[in-house]
């Protein structure tokens, strides 16, 4: 067992993990942050996407020990403390960007990364960004529309999402 300390959504967490424990299982089962989902556990579906030191990572393919000392962002950290949704979350709601919601945490984290790097993406760039995230419910269009809506709004108001 290894002691792991990391900062998740701005809060310090600590826990013990075996060498083989994935970051996803550590987040979900050890730290009880179950917002991050597992859809394939082999690195294709993107449901488990979190940001590690600001970069998207498949938490099913990363070991918890590799995240020791890292800054991790998960879906639980997107909304404000008062419950105000992150603009992307709000846009997902407005544009029906989710149905069963299982892919949603991974989609959101992937798109948070996209919008940080590319605040005004084209439709193709949005589709490209989520091409490693599988959604069986929506057909993706509403997710793309939600993202473009946020990007558009950010443009008119001049604020970063």
């Amino acid at each position: 067992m290894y002691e792991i300390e990391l900062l998740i959504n701005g809060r310090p967490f600590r826990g013990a993990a075996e060498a083989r424990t994935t970051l996803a299982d550590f987040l979900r089962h050890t730290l009880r942050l179950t917002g991050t989902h597992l859809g394939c556990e082999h690195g294709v579906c993107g449901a488990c996407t979190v940001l590690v030191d600001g970069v998207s990572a498949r938490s099913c393919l990363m070991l918890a020990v590799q995240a020791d000392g890292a800054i991790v962002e998960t879906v639980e950290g997107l909304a404000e403390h008062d419950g105000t949704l992150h603009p992307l979350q709000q846009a997902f709601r407005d544009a029906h960007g989710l149905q069963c919601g299982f892919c949603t945490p991974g989609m959101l984290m992937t798109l948070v990364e996209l919008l940080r790097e590319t605040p005004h993406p084209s439709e193709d760039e949005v589709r490209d960004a989520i091409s490693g995230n599988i959604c069986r419910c929506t057909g993706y269009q509403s997710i793309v529309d939600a993202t473009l809506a946020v990007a558009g709004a950010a443009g008119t108001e001049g604020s970063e999402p």
Partner: protein
Amino acid sequence: MTGTPASQPRVVTRPSVGRPVPRLEDLPLLTGAGRYLDDIELPELLHCAFVRSPVAHARIERIDVEAARAMDGVHAVLTLADLMPKLTSGRMPLGASPIKGENSSTPFVLADREVAYVGEPIVLVVAHSRYLAEDAAAQVQVDFTPLPVASDARAAMAPDSPLVRTELKSNVLNSFKVGFGDVEAAFAGAAHVFSDVLSQHRGCGHSMEGRGVLAEIRPGDELCVWSSTQMPHDLYYMLQTMLGLDQDALRVVTPDVGGGFGPKYCLYPEEVALPAAARLLRRSLKWVEDRRETFISSIQERDQYWSVEVAVDAEARLLGIRGSLVHDQGAYAPKPVNLPYNGATAMSGPYILPAYSMDVHVVHTNKVPVSSVRGAGYPQAVFAMERTMDLIAAGMGLDRAEVRRRNLIPPEQMPYTKKLKARSGAAMVYDSGDYPASQREALAAAGWDDFPERQKRALAEGRYIGIGMANAVKGTGRGPFESGVVRVGQNGKVSIFTGAAAMGQGLATALAQICADQLAVPPEDVTVISGDTSKTPLGLGGFASRQLVTAGSSVHLAARAVAEKAIRAASSILEVDEDQLELREGHVHVRDGNRSLGLGEIARMLRGAPGYAFPAGVDPGLEASAQWRTDSLAYANACHVVEVEVEPTLGSVEITRYVALNDSGRMINPMIVEGQVQGGIVHGIGNALYEFMGYDDSCQPVTTTFQEYLLVTATELPRLETIFRETPSPKNPIGAKGVGETGTIPAAAAVISAVENALAPFGIRISQTPVPPQSLFRLIEAARQSQAGQPPRRKDLPDDQET
């Protein structure tokens, strides 16, 4: 329901039905606060893994669990024999059939003598973590003697074929004929006869959340079973029987369900094995399917082989269709014949067909058992029919849309009775819809008539573009009923309790909207409790695009009864005639005055207080229950038009335009309807071009990851253009028709039609799905060789391209 209202209660409301109300489900799901099966944590919970068969057919000689049992952190390693003391049968009951019948085709709770497909569960391992359970599962030794396999359903029908299971006398589970009219006469009098052999391959449902079961032992030996299922009540009834439990000793609950798409309609061995083991060990147990297990143990569908012969008159009007259909049932039949029956009876779809005869054979193979995946037999039937329509057009030199137009059921013939019976035995009556107008509208939106000109120009530039179309009709809203209880709480907020099962489709929002309008409250003030057998005594669940129609109708009736009751109670309390009262903003108001009573106040009075007067003429409780009954289906229809560009040197297909017209009757929430249609289309595109569940000749699955089995991602898609018609169904009080499957059903047929059209210069006929690049490339190469290098010429375009 409690009392049918003599007249409509007067309700003044801004209707929420018909508006894109934001979903009530979304907030927890967006913030990571959803609670799916694997998110449930209980004290002292143990974790499970299954030892599954690595071979497709074998006799089990010996199961040695000793090494596994001795491992650290392992709590138990259980075979069927270990579980039997807690089971009334080692074999699953025949699903969806309360009638006792022959049961030599359902799966076993755990296999103990023979395995019949790769993935069949044999041993249940219980440990302190899933990691440890999997470690121990790898240490279980099972000695097998291999047995021959049947891999192709057509060959498996032969009397000398190896048997899928040694207990069978034949691999043919069932053979039946579906038909009507004088088919022989139809063919004798035909101007043209065309024939084709079509095959469609199997795929998986692949909800992003797999299956999962949690069996919780509660104080007093009570069992609470959580399952990611579409059928909580079915599971409740089945477990009572399988575990020999009193009804009050068991509760079944569905947490948030991460998608269904059919496979969660069946009840599975794991859903019995875990509860039985939990009772045996007196410990709470959890098992969550991993993706590899989805590939080798969750229901798959669509392996069918159709031989179709069609007779038409000189005007291309259908005279008769005959043929045979071989349905690959896989190793077991959790449900008897639902899919092939759906397929065989749905083939003629929106068309007038005077005579029909289809011989259906349901045949076992050593593959994962087969039941519904989104569409449930309909996509195959539509593929067979629509490809046949294209064949007639090509053969007679007619426009493909024109051939269809000549055969569509005209609106003035609605309701239209097909000479077939639905599975319930009721007559198959198309209740409503305007199929010619649907086709017209979709074609106009897609620019069908201009396409030949564009195609000619593209071809001159060396680009192969094509257009295709498909019509579909889908029976939705299957009964016999779904439950709906509407109850007003002490605070005036409303709760709906239903047996319908939410699995991500927005059921709660739609039901809340229906209820809200009847009670003049905002939908946000309505909560929906579904998927809990302790809160809803009766229910069926999710299948056949049924829940909005059935549960929606029950909720509509129950909510209306509550409104009427509130007005009657208010009339008694306020001593004002009922016709002077109206329900507005959650209050019963005296129309010309300022007195009013809130729904919460009325609910408090109707709960009863010992020693105080009770309003006259009303029953206790501000609530009503309805079980809207139906034996008929509400028929939704769709017309899809697709444009593609094919790169013949690679066999790759790009979908460049997708226009889908959908008529699912009255739309309760257009935003949700559109989401269903878009998601459905993408599933169908997957079936057409990408999704291929492969097996080798020894029935070893060869696609068990998402790297081998391709799901459609965002980059393969154009913007999907949806058009909606709303022909209300006269068959239910809300006028709705189902929409969960109508996007999927015609999609593969339309895409393939377009691909074939793009490759018309090569003279290729495509009678199969899917056509991934390698398949298409082979077809193109074969055609090139037979054309001996001739360049495509104008006259090689099919005749419907002539302008």
